C-alpha cells in the first residue's frame, strides 16, 4: 500500500508553527540566562531589555495559539501532525511562564542591588546552573525530537528539588541566626522558588517531547529508569505576583 500523498499546505503550516516555537524557546532560554546573571552579579541593568524580550515571547505565544487553532480547523491534522500541534500549544504556554519566572529573578536582583555586600552562596549558583541546564537540554530534545534525552531531563528534576530544599534550609538557618539578613534571604528564597519552577516547566517540556515522539504521556507516573515529573500546572505558576511578592508573606 502506498502512503497517502503529503498535504503540502499542512506541512508548511506545521513548519511555521515549529519555527515560532523554537524562536520562543531561544528567547526564553536567553531570558533565564540574563535573569540568573543579573541575580548572581547583582546587576539590575538587564531588566528593561528583558521586559521587551518577554513582551515578544508573549506575542509569540499568542501567535502559536492562533496558528494552532487555524491549523486544526483548516487542515484536520492526525497522528504525529496532530501531536505536533498540541505539543506546540502546551510548550508555548510553558515557555511563556518560564519568561515570567526569568523576569521575576531579575526583579529580585534589582531589589538586592541596594542591599550592600551579601555573603557568598555557592548552593544558589548551583541551583541556577541545574535549572538552566535542564531547560537547555529539554529545548535541545525538543529541537531534535530526542525522546531519550527528554527522559534523561525528566530524571534530573529530583536533583533540582533537592538543591532547592538545601537552599531553603541554609536560608532558614541564616534568618534565624541574623535577623538583619531576613530581607536579603527572602529574595534568595523567592529566586530559588523561581528556579525550581523553571526546572518543573523544563520537565513539562521534556514530557511533551516524549509524547510528541512516542505518542504516550509520561506525566504523573513513574517510568522505569526515570521519573515522570510532577506537572508544573497552573497552581504552580509563578510564585511571585507581578511585583514579586511571595504569597503568604504579606509582602
Amino acid at each position: 500500500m502506498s502512503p497517502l500523498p503529503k498535504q503540502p499546505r499542512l506541512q508548511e503550516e506545521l513548519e511555521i508553527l515549529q519555527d515560532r516555537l523554537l524562536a520562543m524557546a531561544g528567547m526564553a532560554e536567553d531570558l533565564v540566562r540574563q535573569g540568573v546573571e543579573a541575580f548572581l552579579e547583582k546587576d539590575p541593568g538587564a531588566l528593561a531589555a528583558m521586559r521587551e524580550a518577554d513582551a515578544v515571547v508573549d506575542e509569540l505565544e499568542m501567535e502559536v495559539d492562533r496558528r494552532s487553532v487555524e491549523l486544526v480547523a483548516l487542515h484536520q491534522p492526525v497522528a504525529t501532525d496532530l501531536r505536533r500541534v498540541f505539543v506546540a500549544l502546551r510548550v508555548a504556554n510553558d515557555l511563556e511562564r518560564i519568561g515570567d519566572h526569568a523576569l521575576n529573578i531579575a526583579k529580585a536582583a534589582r531589589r538586592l542591588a541596594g542591599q550592600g555586600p551579601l555573603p557568598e552562596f555557592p548552593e544558589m549558583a548551583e541551583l541556577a546552573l541545574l535549572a538552566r541546564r535542564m531547560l537547555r537540554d529539554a529545548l535541545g530534545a525538543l529541537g531534535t525530537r530526542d525522546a531519550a534525552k527528554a527522559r534523561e531531563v525528566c530524571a534530573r528534576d529530583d536533583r533540582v528539588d533537592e538543591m532547592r530544599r538545601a537552599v531553603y534550609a541554609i536560608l532558614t538557618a541564616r534568618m534565624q541566626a541574623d535577623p538583619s539578613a531576613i530581607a536579603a534571604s527572602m529574595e534568595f528564597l523567592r529566586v530559588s522558588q523561581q528556579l525550581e519552577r523553571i526546572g518543573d516547566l523544563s520537565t513539562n517540556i521534556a514530557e511533551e517531547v516524549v509524547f510528541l515522539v512516542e505518542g504516550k504521556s509520561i506525566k504523573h507516573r513513574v517510568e522505569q529508569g526515570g521519573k515522570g515529573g510532577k506537572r508544573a500546572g497552573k497552581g504552580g505558576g509563578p510564585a511571585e505576583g507581578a511585583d514579586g511578592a511571595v504569597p503568604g508573606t504579606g509582602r
Partner: protein
Amino acid sequence: MTGAGRETWAWPGPEGPALEIRGLTVRHRGRVVVRNLSLTVPRGAVVALVGPKGCGKRILLRSLNRMAQEEEGVTVSGEVLVGGRNLLDAGVDPAEARRTLGLVLPQAPPLPGSILANLAFGPLVHGWTEDLDRRVDEALKSADLWEEFGERLDSPAAQLDRLGLQKLALARALALDPALLLLEDPTLGLEPDEARILEGLLRGLVPPRAALLATSSLQQAARLGDYAAFLLEGELVEFGPTPQVFTRPRDARTEAFLTGRDL
C-alpha cells in the same frame, strides 16, 4: 499567443480581481435560487463555496459561464465581470464565456475518442489551430498527464482511471487558457489518496488564474480555499478569509452550518 478569436479574449487586466460578480440573481421556473449575489474572486485565489444541499452553489457556478441559461426556465440577471467585461452581455458569445470560466464537473465523462481528441476539441472549436500542439502539451503538463501520456496521446480517453479522467477534465479546461476555473466537487467519487493528489494539483495550477470551488466537503473547502463563502437558500450569508470563516464565523447561520447544528 496567437489564434483566431484572441482579440475578443476576456482576461482580467494586470490589476483588479480575477472575477467580480455583481447583483447576480438566478431564477428557476420563477423561483429565486440565487439572490442578488455579489462576490469578488481575487487574482490567484481559490474561493470555496459551501452550503447545504440546494443552497444554489451548483447553479451559481453554471450561471456564471452561461451554461445554466441553456436550461429551460432559467433566467439570470446581474453582472459577471472579467477584465471589466460582463460575460452575461448579449453581445458576448456564450462559448467565450465558457472558455473564459473553465468549468470542471464532478466525475466528468470524457469525450469520445483519444486523449488528444479530448484536448484538441475545445481549441479547434474556437479556431485555435496555429498553436494547437503547444496548447495541448501545456494542458497535459499542467494537469500532470504529460509524463504518462505525453507519448501516447492516441490512447482512448475512456481507458483512464477515475483520477485520470478528472485530470483530463481539468486539462480540457486548461487547454482554453481560462481566466478562472469553476470547480464543481472536483474530487467527488475519488479515493482519499486520489483526492489529495488532485487537490495538490489544483493548488499548484490555480495561480496566476483563480478558482471558484463549489464543494460538498467542508474539509476540502478548508484545505483549498483562500477565501470561503457560505451560501444559504441562494443568499451569500458570509464571505471572508477561510481561517476567519472556519474559526470565527461572523454569522450565526455560518456557525450552525459549520458545526452541524440546525440552521
